[in-house]
């Protein structure tokens, strides 16, 4: 890349920042329409129960009530993954968690809607509930869903790359570890909201705080029984998402139905308690790993098992399960690898994709495990990792194609900046340093439902006045996706980003982009925008070259001009250039699209893990621990992130700092937990669900490592999720450095620290955490020879049978998702 870029790489303002600081951004709940009605949902008070009858007569009789709907109106199931379409917009025959909606009301105002919802009489027949992984394994009955692989085990996976037993036999040292990662939730500051507006001709528009308007479009059309052309989805700017607004939700489909029934716009805004029930957050995961290493730390074999507590529905869970086993291989070389994963159904709000989707839990165990291995081998934990990094442009044991990898620079940077050599294992008791590294996808290589179309599309309209409108299906959730589109188009066309109007996330107006998930937007929309802008540039130089008599290859675009680079005074303004091109070609518009490169992983389940590019992060955390109280604080963080190229360093650093913050919340305090035997959420409010404030914010030193990736626009890779991954293990490893005890559990709360210290003082191992995993009979593994065994990415044995899912919900292909 040349250094004469004028927009890319500069710390420019976000194109939507001014509206945000004056409160003018229109979030979903800020919308109002004439005659608008308000909806409320009636939710189940039981964790698991049959719905025997619903009497809505008292609600309907209330003055100001316009309509009441129940599961009767929603016979068609939906769900984000084609293999687990197990949700109904309102429950029909049974409820599966406290908070599962059974009925909905539209009324003149929210007060009346609430009163009417409470006037609905539901008769339930309670069923025994399943509330943990252990219970799900032990109690196959009653089944939460009939289509699970076995009893209440939604999905069981087993795959082996190479021969892990041979790997252990080659090892000088073998170690195993257990870990439990508690669930937690996204906690976006914006409560979910949807407003449905009916058209007189029977169509409906849904405005919603969704990260995935395209998937909502598909689900809503299907459930409403309408052609997709009659359903329009507009994603409003999301007031925070973090993965929590990536599923199609009950409330979005319910308001559309209510709008069609009443002929009125209908709004629903969830309260904070309901946001905790929507959830789709971090799966609680119990894990076990066994690793064989040579004396120098080279990994000869790794066997990893994960047990996910999935909650009541499928959501992204099958993909989440694969993700708990997918990315162990992309940081350090793993010669032989075996993964077994189980996802259980439980009677709790469904888990799904939260920032890092399925990878923070295994990454935490892996990095803690390596810390322990390094100590046993008497190696510095950083030196040991540096000796075995995955090479650039290589293929891993599980056939993930790694392109650029700036991990070495990341590790060396934080090692040197933190004073690691002088301070690790040398600080006074109560203070410590810990290290961890990680990697994440820049977008999933395959779409959620099987198709061969582009993942992202951009259309440009060039205006005679010199403005450009950029249409794209991508969704602005605060990460700066609208700005990325403007920056790329402005760079190519030589105009200012603020000359560009960005129109996004409207299924009627914008070409499909799959959504703001899996850290895919910068890479995929950026590439689509590059192509569309490149084609627009071509039209402009063709027309201007002909008019000025200058070869088009000599023309440059910069400073809102198209000019002869050899005689810069000869040229046209950008507006004149557009007029010139419009005269020559007619109305000006161009398109661009992006489809990821084909994956080398040809085995079943190989849809999860491939990505056009992988980002890398390394972190050193410094902690202070009070051995009297068990209280842990994190005063300093050093983090280096390989983002390929920072399209705007200010925004990339913002993503890194935000990731660090969210990871600290997970490791220090956040937990979505339930009352035993009831399945009642312990703290569904901001007052009780603890998250970090300004007071807990450490001094975060961020270093961007720019190792441009050929698959990224201008070399860019992701930044929004990867930097969360090293936070938890770096803090846990630092606590060990500070106190000499291991807390093999997240969150790391003072009780756990004190318990570990107590055990150590009693002469027992200074550790708290799980010591066993449930006994599960796994299917025969899918066996895939590694690339170094001459494999071609295909399985040689063990492709499993199809699971017994309802025919309308069967997938056409392996599951995929980021």
């Amino acid at each position, binding site marked *: 890349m040349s250094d004469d870029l004028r927009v890319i790489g500069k710390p420019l303002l976000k194109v939507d920042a001014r509206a945000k600081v004056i409160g003018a951004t229109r979030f979903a709940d800020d919308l109002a329409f004439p005659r608008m009605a308000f909806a409320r949902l009636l939710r189940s008070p039981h964790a698991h129960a049959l719905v025997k009858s619903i009497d809505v007569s008292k609600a309907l009789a209330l003055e100001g009530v316009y309509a009441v709907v129940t599961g009767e109106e929603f016979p068609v199931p939906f769900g984000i993954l084609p293999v687990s379409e197990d949700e109904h917009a309102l429950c029909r025959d049974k409820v599966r968690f406290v908070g599962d909606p059974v009925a909905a009301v539209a009324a003149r105002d929210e*007060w009346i809607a609430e009163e009417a919802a409470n006037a609905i009489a539901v008769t339930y027949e309670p069923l025994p509930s399943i509330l943990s992984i252990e219970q799900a394994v032990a109690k196959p009955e009653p089944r939460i869903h009939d289509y699970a692989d076995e009893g209440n085990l939604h999905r069981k996976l087993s795959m082996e790359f190479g021969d892990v037993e041979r790997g252990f036999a080659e090892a000088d040292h073998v170690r195993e570890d257990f870990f439990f990662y508690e669930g937690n939730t996204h906690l976006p500051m914006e409560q979910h909201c949807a407003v449905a507006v009916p058209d007189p001709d029977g169509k409906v528009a849904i405005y919603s705080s969704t990260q995935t308007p395209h998937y909502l479009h598909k689900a809503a059309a299907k459930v409403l029984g309408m052609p997709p052309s009659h359903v329009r989805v507009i994603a409003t700017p999301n007031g925070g998402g*973090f993965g929590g607004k990536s599923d199609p939700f009950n409330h979005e489909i319910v308001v559309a139905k209510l709008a069609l029934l009443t002929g009125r716009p209908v709004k629903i*805004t969830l309260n904070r308690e309901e946001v905790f029930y929507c959830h789709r957050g971090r799966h609680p995961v119990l894990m076990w790993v066994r690793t064989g290493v040579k004396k120098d730390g080279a990994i000869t074999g790794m066997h990893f098992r994960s047990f996910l507590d999935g909650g009541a529905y499928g959501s992204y869970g099958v993909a989440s399960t694969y993700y708990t086993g997918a990315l162990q291989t992309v940081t350090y070389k793993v010669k032989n690898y075996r993964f077994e994963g189980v996802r259980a159904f439980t009677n709790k709000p469904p888990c799904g994709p939260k920032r890092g989707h399925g990878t923070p839990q295994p990454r935490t165990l892996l990095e803690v495990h390596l810390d322990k291995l390094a100590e046993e081998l008497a190696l510095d934990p950083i030196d040991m990792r540096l000796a075995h990094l995955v090479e650039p442009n290589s293929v891993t044991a599980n056939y993930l194609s790694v392109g650029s990898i700036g991990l070495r620079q990341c590790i060396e940077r934080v090692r040197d900046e933190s004073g690691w050599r002088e301070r690790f294992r040398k600080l006074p008791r109560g203070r410590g340093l810990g290290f961890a590294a990680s990697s994440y996808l820049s977008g999933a290589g395959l779409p959620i439902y099987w198709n061969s179309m582009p993942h992202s599309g951009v259309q440009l309209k060039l205006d005679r006045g010199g403005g450009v409108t950029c249409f794209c299906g991508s969704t602005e959730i605060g990460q700066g996706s609208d700005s990325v589109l403007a920056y790329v188009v402005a760079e190519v066309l030589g105009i200012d980003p603020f000359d560009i109007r960005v129109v996004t996330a409207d299924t009627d107006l914008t070409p499909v982009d799959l959504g703001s998930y899996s850290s895919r937007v910068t890479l995929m929309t950026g590439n689509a925008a590059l192509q569309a802008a490149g084609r627009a540039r071509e039209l402009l130089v063709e027309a201007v070259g002909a008019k000025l008599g200058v070869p088009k290859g000599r023309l440059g675009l910069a400073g809102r001009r198209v000019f002869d680079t050899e005689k810069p005074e000869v040229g046209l303004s950008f507006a004149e250039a557009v007029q010139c091109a419009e005269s020559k070609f007619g109305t000006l518009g161009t398109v661009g699209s992006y489809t990821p490169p084909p994956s080398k992983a040809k085995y079943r389940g190989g849809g999860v893990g491939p990505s056009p590019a992988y980002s890398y992060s390394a972190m050193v955390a410094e902690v202070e621990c009070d051995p009297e109280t068990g209280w842990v604080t994190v005063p300093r963080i050093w983090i280096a992130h390989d983002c390929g190229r920072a399209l705007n360093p200010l925004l990339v650093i913002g993503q890194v700092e935000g990731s660090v913050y969210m990871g600290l919340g997970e490791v220090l305090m956040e937990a979505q937990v339930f009352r035993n035997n009831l399945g009642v959420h312990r703290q569904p409010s*901001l007052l009780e669900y603890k998250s970090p404030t300004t007071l807990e914010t450490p001094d975060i030193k961020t270093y961007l490592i720019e190792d441009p990736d050929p698959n990224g626009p201008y070399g860019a890779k992701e930044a929004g999720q990867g930097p969360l991954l090293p936070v938890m293990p770096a803090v846990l490893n630092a606590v060990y450095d500070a106190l000499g005890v291991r807390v093999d559990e997240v969150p790391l709360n003072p009780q756990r620290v004190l318990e570990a210290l107590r055990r150590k003082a009693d002469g027992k191992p200074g550790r708290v955490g799980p010591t066993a995993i449930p006994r599960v009979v796994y299917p025969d593994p899918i066996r895939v020879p590694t690339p170094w065994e001459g494999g071609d990415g295909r399985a040689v044995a063990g492709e499993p049978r199809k699971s017994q899912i309802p025919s309308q919900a069967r997938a056409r292909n392996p599951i995929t998702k980021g």
Partner: protein
Amino acid sequence: MPVARAAKIEVSFTLNGAPVTVRALPMARLLDVLREDLRLTGTKEGCGEGECGACSVFLNGRLVTSCLVPIMQAEGARVETIEGVADQPDVVPIREAFVACNGSQCGICTPGMILATTALLRARPNPAETEVREALAGNLCRCTGYVKIFEAVARAAEARRGAAGGVR
């Protein structure tokens, strides 16, 4: 009698410098009246229990969370929202600093952050970092990790001090 059937009451107050009179249910919150009746949607709801600060407004010059203010408490009061505050000369440097420093990502907490920063810098034009942390501890942000917000506050404080002669 169910709450939804209660008689509406008349409440008068000064909103962003102009007198207003609204008819509202007695249990309505100042937040509801601002957003639903007066259509000033810059004030946000994040939790409904005074924990997140997204609904911050000035009530008689004091920073309050409007989700915890019953509407009757606004009777005769002076209420200022982001819409009225954002263009005030001593607030312009604050909002511009949030833009310049990327102190706002999704933007839902930002109006509350701007008001909390305004309250801080009006009381303490040159705050220490610990004072900034304490002043903003009641405003939750899930996007930024707060670092860029601290930078924005420092930049705003400096800009306001530079312009102080002309501003206050």
